């Protein structure tokens, strides 16, 4: 990766850390409702219909294990886990993102029991091989 690209990536990661650290404001949630018709902590361009297509394509169901890389506030991993009742592991780099995703799952207790959260980069995932039935990500840098 070139120096300029590395610097741009570092800047964007810092911005994401600040964004996830403070959580979505009331206005940001209003934007999400107006654009996506949802209040799911959407942090990419993936619409709920597209998340449904992911779940269908991956044939997720109870007992299967999904990894969501760069999950942000939990989108789309938590949504898919809720819809399909699969297990989900959500990872992202900013600590604030993972805290927010975990808090979102905790508010929906049955979902909380099926989800695990870890602070990790997609380039260095702390999992054994053959751990997952499916992997998703969405507009990750």
């Amino acid at each position, binding site marked *: 990766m070139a120096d300029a690209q590395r610097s741009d*990536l570092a800047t964007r990661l810092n911005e994401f850390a600040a964004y996830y650290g403070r959580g979505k404001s009331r206005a940001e949630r209003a934007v999400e409702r107006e654009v996506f018709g949802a209040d799911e902590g959407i942090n990419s*361009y993936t619409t709920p219909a597209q998340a449904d297509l992911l779940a269908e394509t991956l044939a997720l169901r109870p007992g299967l294990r999904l990894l969501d890389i760069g999950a942000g506030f939990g989108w789309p991993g938590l949504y898919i886990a809720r819809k399909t009742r699969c297990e989900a592991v959500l990872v992202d780099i900013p600590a604030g993102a993972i805290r927010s995703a975990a808090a979102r799952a905790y508010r929906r207790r049955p979902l909380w029991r099926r989800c695990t959260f870890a602070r990790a980069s997609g380039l260095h995932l702390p999992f054994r091989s053959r751990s997952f039935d499916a992997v998703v990500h969405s507009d990750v840098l």
Partner: protein
Amino acid sequence: MLKPGGCIAYYNIFVTEGLPEDARRQAGKVRPGTYTPAQQRGLLRSAGFTRIRETDVTAEFERVQRALYEAARRHERALRRTQGDERFEQRQADRRESLRGLAEGVLRRSLFVARRP
């Protein structure tokens, strides 16, 4: 990471194939480090994935990007308070650039699905 027979599925933004040099540079400014779909297929293949499928979702991406831009304008005052003027303006400028890239055909968004044998 995936079990044998496991599947990866993801949406991402790509640079259109076969662009002239100046258009490729412009796409690089809008979305630095972005691959073309052919490069993405090559990476998946070299990582051992098979049954690679790509579905173009550019039209929906353009609709969402435009809707985000317009919604942000409607909520501008409140968003400036939480994001700060500089960040708000940067995000809106990024969205305008992205829409320009889409109108000029240099960017696209796709769903990639691939399976581990």
